[in-house]
């Protein structure tokens, strides 16, 4: 008999514990279960946003305001910027993902192809944004994000070492060498190359990565080959390690930043994210458009950052309300500028920070810029592109024309295979 008492006690105990564990769950349901139609009752009224640490800090005030106005809870989950996209891709289909993520516009292709983000109707607010910002978030005809910041690279000059920047890149190199500084100009690349920072030089030879239609948006047809592309490849090799030695694959982002901050070069091609370390080091700097190397305008890539709404969000209304009526306001966009240094996408906010010469300089340099393509295949383009440029600069690739042609072939192959 005692045996059965013990078993009964054990069962009773586990049941009691289970009841405790399950109790909180069923309690949640009761509080929101007034309407049977509410499918995911637990999450109604709670908005989850994934953002990296800088963006999360800039959003705090507006989130508090939103919570107060609407009587809802907003949960900001801080994540490493590079982790947001892969984690969103794997978690969103399970229904466990966030309602809103902060991300870059060139994620759009992949996220849309995976069916993970909802089109956002900006409505009348659309006209308040810089045109390039909205077009960057447009993929296959629909807008998929609310932009907040625009970034592009520009030429940054150390005023202590040079003034009167010349109009061509060759003259700039000559001027930089004449100053006696260790590097005439710094462009970060590393052993894997960095096609993003090298792009203004490439476009100045008239070899954009993809062809564009009349409206200026990309069509998926490679345009970086041909005579223009070859001319750029030869130019890269001529200023590389086997040539004049201006470029060097050993110059990584960290090394370039430190060298410029230490006054070892009069010029660097970099973006707004690096300005803070320079001013902290006491460099007196001016931000300028990039001089042309090949005769045509040196157009940098423009990157736009913004907010995406998950297609699996159960809080579509709340998310859109927050983005269109709260995040797309001047105060928020200025706050984001102050923490991240990216030029606000909202025109009014950009004007508000316009008297900052650094911001004005980057805006001026980006005026001729084009958005980075957001095709999902861009990942493979970046890999081949960067490595080939690195090989040209390091002198491993001895026949620039042939190596550049092989690269174009490989990129085309990767795009076709995907």
């Amino acid at each position: 008999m005692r045996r059965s008492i013990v078993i009964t006690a054990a069962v009773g105990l586990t049941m009691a514990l289970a009841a405790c564990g399950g109790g909180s769950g069923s309690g949640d349901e009761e509080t929101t279960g007034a309407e049977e139609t509410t499918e995911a009752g637990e999450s109604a009224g709670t908005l989850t946003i994934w953002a990296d640490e800088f963006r999360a800090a800039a959003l705090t005030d507006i989130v508090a305001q939103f919570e107060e106005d609407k009587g809802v809870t907003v949960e900001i989950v801080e994540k490493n910027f590079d982790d947001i996209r892969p984690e969103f891709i794997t978690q969103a289909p399970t229904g466990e993902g966030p309602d809103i993520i902060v991300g870059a516009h060139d994620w759009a292709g992949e996220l849309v192809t995976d069916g993970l983000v909802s089109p956002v109707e900006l409505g009348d607010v659309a006209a308040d944004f810089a045109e390039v910002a909205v077009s960057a978030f447009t993929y296959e005809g629909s807008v998929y994000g609310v932009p907040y910041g625009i970034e592009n690279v520009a030429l940054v000059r150390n005023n202590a070492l040079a003034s009167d920047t010349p109009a061509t890149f060759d003259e700039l190199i000559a001027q930089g060498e004449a100053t006696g500084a260790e590097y005439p100009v710094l462009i970060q690349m590393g052993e894997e190359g960095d096609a993003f920072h090298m792009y203004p030089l490439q476009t100045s030879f008239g070899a954009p990565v993809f062809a564009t239609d009349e409206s200026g948006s990309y069509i998926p047809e490679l345009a970086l080959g041909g005579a223009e592309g070859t001319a750029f490849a030869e130019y890269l090799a001529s200023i590389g390690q086997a040539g004049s030695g201006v470029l060097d694959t050993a110059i990584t982002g960290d090394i370039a930043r430190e060298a410029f901050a230490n006054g070892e070069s009069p010029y660097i091609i970099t973006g707004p994210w690096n300005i803070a370390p320079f001013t902290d080091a006491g460099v007196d700097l001016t931000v300028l458009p990039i001089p042309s190397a090949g005769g045509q305008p040196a157009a940098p890539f423009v990157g736009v950052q913004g907010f995406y709404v998950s297609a699996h969000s159960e809080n579509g209304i709340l998310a859109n309300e927050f983005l269109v009526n709260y995040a797309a306001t001047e105060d928020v966009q200025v706050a984001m500028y102050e923490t991240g240094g990216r030029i606000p996408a909202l025109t009014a906010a950009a004007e508000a920070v316009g008297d900052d010469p650094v911001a004005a300089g980057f805006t001026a340099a980006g005026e001729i810029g084009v958005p980075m393509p957001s095709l999902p295949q861009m990942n493979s383009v970046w890999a081949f592109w960067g490595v080939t440029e690195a090989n040209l600069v390091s002198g491993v690739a001895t026949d620039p024309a042939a190596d550049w042609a092989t690269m174009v072939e490989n990129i085309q192959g990767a795009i076709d295979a995907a």
Partner: protein
Amino acid sequence: MKGRDAADTTDAPPPSPDEVAAAERAAAGRGTTSHAREMGPYFVVKLVLLALIDAFGLFVIFSSWQVEHWGILASMVAILVVVNWVYFSRRMIAAKYLFPGLVFLLVYQLFTMGYTAYISFTNYGTGHNATREDAVAANLAQNESRVPDSPSYPLTVVTTPDGELGFAIVDDGEVLAGTAEQPFEESPDATVADGDVTEVPGYDVLSFAQILEQQNEITNLRVGFADADEGSIRTQDGSTGYLYRSVLTYDEATGAITNTDTGVVYTDNGEGSFQAEDGSTLLVGWRVAVGFDNYTAMFTDSRLSGPFLSVLAWTFAFAILSVGTTFFLGLFLAIVFNHPAVRGRRVIRSLLILPYAFPGFLSGLVWAGLLNRRFGFINEVLLGGAEIPWLTDPWLAKLSVIGVNLWLGFPYMFLIATGALQAISTDMYEAARIDGAGAGRVFRSITLPLLMISLAPLLIASFAFNFNNFNLIFFLTEGGPNFPGSPIAVGATDILISMVYSVAFESGTQQFGLASAMAIMIFIMVGVISWLGFRQTHKLEEVI
């Protein structure tokens, strides 16, 4: 009562007569009593632990039931039943010890392998990320666009007395109201304040809190006009309406999507996409089983098969050389510092195992910095500014990888070789010396064979580890320098696992299915080699 005296030392209530009889039978039968049901202190501990496990299990079952993960639910139920049976049964003595190990084997090994194998037979990746249902919804949503140059309407969400949702909008100063079933009708008696509708006869206006309770229903609601071709009004934020037209319609019965503008019909092509007759597909697809496609792609895709062989050769070279160099350096040092004549052996031994204490990825990064061609410590300081391309010349990069792995790996070999050396009886050496054997002969005939008996399995494990030593390659060279002109982005120091990473994630779109198939192939390769290796080690034991 002698059985009770031996087993029961607590002041538990006196047992019933048949319980005592059972205990005595057990004591007589096996010479021991079981803790399975005896009310001793161990039993209470066991009861508490099992209760906790059961509570946790029930929590998991409850949670998985809520999110409708039936697989997890079923396996958790099975595990719970078996746990309780094993630990409350008197007969399952062996299972009591084996069970925890079996559960971990199941969860951490078999499940992972099974799931990887399952993914390898699907087309999971960019464009095939979720279910068919999600893909249909995503395609429809992406192809529903706002009518160009249409105005925005101030909108109020309303509900009919019988709970049907609807919209009330203001169009040119006139209020229109309607539901999904009932197209917009003029509602002249409605009240408008500040441009927003606040009251509509025949409808109740929803508050913001009420709207939040049915967000999905409201964002999915379309209210049409009397003329159906005009499009329909929908809202994203509950306060502004826009006129939309949907280009695609989904037919539940045939499972096909039709483009109403062009009349093109997209049907399920069996490969996880909606395909039209001209071969064009809709953007979003879903995950389906594709059989052995991922496995055959490795050998038939010319972009992969070219670099594959050179990467495979280097992977074997790297794994074998890594084990060889670390083992012989470790063994050499172990023998040297095992000699009684060496002073300060303890201190030196502790210093030697220092590299072992660093995390591998950290060492990889540090060495990448040290070996940098232009700014690295080795070139700049030790070699007086010689720009030796340690990591960027194909052969030097291979040498550097082996060298850094030697630095990382020899302490482990040193440790295990020291341990094994100390286990060899000194009698053997004495006997050998009496027989007139020299130092070399002793090493070859006694030390090495005896060491190999205990070390060979560890060397095989080390081989398997280095075969997949992703951290070192990724942080030291990232697989570079890349093969110039190779159709996929792999390089001279890429091993199979880093090639998998580069092919499946870095170059182009994400291909989880292909990556899983390649991982399974690597698993089979390592498994076969290890199995052959272990078979050989049995022969070693017959040496002496």
